[in-house]
């Protein structure tokens, strides 16, 4: 991979730091009038999601990271790996549970996910912002509760548990915001 100098660091650039693939979030140029120039850089470790802050001498460089964001369709899991398919080339990618992380509770077959590939292998899987899933289990709703703001837990096909309004019943398909894990609405009838 090519090397990138501090003056090429900009948000979104993928570089290697301490052997880990990182994405640059911020790059601040700091220099005393008479003295050494520095770049204070914030990076996200793409594997752990942690944000690192590091200072470089201006002009120092980092190796680029072989990182690619692709849109893949979730196929299935064999219990150990989660399999995603490229809808154009039909290539399959196996992601471990480290890479899937919390997204596991939003995995739905044939749904598209943003998968970050590092050296060709998935390191993170990001769900779409909104996803529609079926309720497999929830207490029956009570009449007359529609106007009040009460809620109850509901278990989805993926095993995730979300709070839903009292009028929602088992078997319904609901729309969820995956960023907050909150119920948004009943799914639009298709």
């Amino acid at each position, binding site marked *: 991979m090519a090397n990138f100098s501090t003056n090429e660091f900009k948000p979104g650039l993928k570089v290697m730091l301490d052997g880990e693939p990182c994405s640059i979030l911020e790059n601040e140029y700091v220099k005393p009038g*008479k003295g050494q120039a520095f770049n204070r850089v914030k990076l996200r470790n793409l594997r752990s999601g942690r944000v690192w802050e590091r200072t470089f001498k201006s002009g120092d460089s980092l190796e680029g990271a072989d990182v690619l964001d692709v849109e893949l369709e979730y196929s299935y899991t064999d219990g150990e790996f989660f399999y995603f398919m490229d809808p154009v080339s039909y290539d399959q990618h196996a992601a471990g549970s480290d890479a899937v992380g919390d997204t596991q509770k939003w995995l739905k077959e044939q749904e598209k996910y943003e998968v970050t590939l590092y050296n060709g292998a998935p390191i993170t899987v990001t769900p779409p912002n909104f996803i529609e899933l079926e309720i497999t289990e929830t207490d029956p709703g009570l009449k007359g509760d529609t106007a009040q703001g009460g809620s109850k837990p509901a278990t989805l096909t993926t095993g995730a548990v979300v709070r839903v309004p009292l009028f929602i019943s088992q078997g319904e398909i609901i729309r969820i915001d995956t960023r907050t894990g909150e119920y948004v609405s009943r799914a639009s009838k298709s």
Partner: protein
Amino acid sequence: MNDWCPVALPGVQRQRAALLSDLRRYFAERNVLEVDTPLLCSSGVTDPALENFVVPCRDGSRFLQTSPEYAMKRLLAAGSGDIYQICKAFRAEEVGARHNPEYTLLEWYRSGIDHYRLLHEVGELVCDLLDRPGWQVWPWDTLMQHVLGAEVNSASRKALEKVARQWLGEIPERLDRDGLLDLLVSHCVEPAIADWGVVFIVDYPISQAALARRIESPEGEAVGARFECYVDGMELANGYWECGDVEELTARFTADNERRKQQGQEQRPIDHHLLAALDSGLPDCSGVAMGVDRLLALRAGVASLDAVLGFDWVRS
């Protein structure tokens, strides 16, 4: 899409015009003469921390000036008396919230006074322009000790590295002693004094004297007769009781070039016009350079320089 539009708002443009007129009135009232010197000169600057833009010309390379200092010292040596200049200055590679490769600099020289008296003048001007109540003065080593809780003036490179790691964790490799001091000042001291208002740091270590003369501090230590003015943690002005000793400055410029060579930077020819002027005699004087865009940013209450530049580096 709208890249042709200026960044600065019309109100800020008017504030710039008002600031320039305030500055010119200030100097007119004190009989300091406004001068105009070339920006494209046959010599550049040896300081390894500064990079000239090099402009190819028919008779060889010319250098856009990083400050009008050398030409103004030639005027002083020729008997100009007290002078000031408001001009553009150029520093390649310096782009950031507080830096633009082309910027406006105010530089002035007062004869017969030392840097402490010039500091006082700068303090009055800055407090007047920015409506601040007053300023603090800190000797460099006292402030470092106060902020870092460690004695750094006599500390070895290794000891400084330890202090820097304690404060910052991971630090860049291959920093020499002055590089470590620059790291500590920019990453620890500047944030620490960000809510102190107007702060002057005086009496720098000899290795950071730049073009200031060497004097003895009240404690009997050899220091550089230099001050820096910070406002809300941002460096605004740098002043010296000027060193007029040709041999001393020639040695410093040569050492600069040696350091450039070690760091893989191109060496710069030493300004022979400046040396000849100093040889003929620089009057006893103190001088200071102040960033006008930063002054305007402070006056307009904005954090980033692009808000006060009509067209920043991206749009220029």
